[in-house]
């Protein structure tokens, strides 16, 4: 949670969200999932990925719009005030 009470999902976007899908198998060890349940879950999660691919141009920032670290800090502080 952010200091002002907001949650990260109201500040971060598709780039960080996409990283979650890489980590999801580790975060969900599935030790008590049946095989069919794992398959169903994978299907549902992959549907989200397909949506993100479909909307890739709208969701993700082009690399040239990334900013330098120093600039990012100032920008973030200002924008969240």
């Amino acid at each position, binding site marked *: 949670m952010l200091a002002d009470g907001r949650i990260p999902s109201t500040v971060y976007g598709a780039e960080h969200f996409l990283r979650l899908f890489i980590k999801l198998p580790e975060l969900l060890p599935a030790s008590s999932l049946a095989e069919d349940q794992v398959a169903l879950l*994978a299907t549902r999660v992959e549907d989200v990925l397909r949506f993100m691919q479909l909307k*890739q141009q709208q969701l993700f920032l082009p690399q040239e719009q990334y900013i330098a670290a120093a600039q990012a800090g100032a920008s973030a502080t200002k924008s969240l005030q």
Partner: protein
Amino acid sequence: MEETGLIKAPQDGGPLPNSKKGGTKGSSQAAKRTADGTAAPAPQLSLTMPAPLKKQLLDDHDAVVENSKLLPLPRSPTVVEIVQQYVAHVLGRQPSADAEDDVAAGLQLYFDKALVHCLLYKGERQQADQVGLRGLDAELASFMRHMDQLVATHAAILRTELQPMWFIGSASASRHPAVHTSPVNRC
């Protein structure tokens, strides 16, 4: 890759398990017993990352890690908005999206709890501090508390077809000790 544990998505299939479409997910691990009678590993979630998104991950990694760039925050659309758009997208193709809504809500919840532990590159930590993310120690304790609370707060979800999904992430240390052993390192 940096200390986040995020694995740079390789060109040959990404950091995700090498799952393939066609129903093989987890099948090699799902047998109840192996030939010698010992318990087989539980089936693991195996996701197929579309190639364009793999490239997106690589480009993002290169920008942040190799070129010391950062994403300007807040982003637009946010994760909340993406999840909302996804559910609306599903409702555009079918009359109900209850299951998809549950999954999307779960993903958002995991994102909120996992961000500082797993989803930031080292170069992004300072930016996270600047936008007001709590310190890692406090967040770690909060992370574990929330994981335990998920069972109670998402009781309805637990009764659905995806019941085990959120339960696993909410398991107590006694049931899933690995959850409580250095989540930062696990990520």
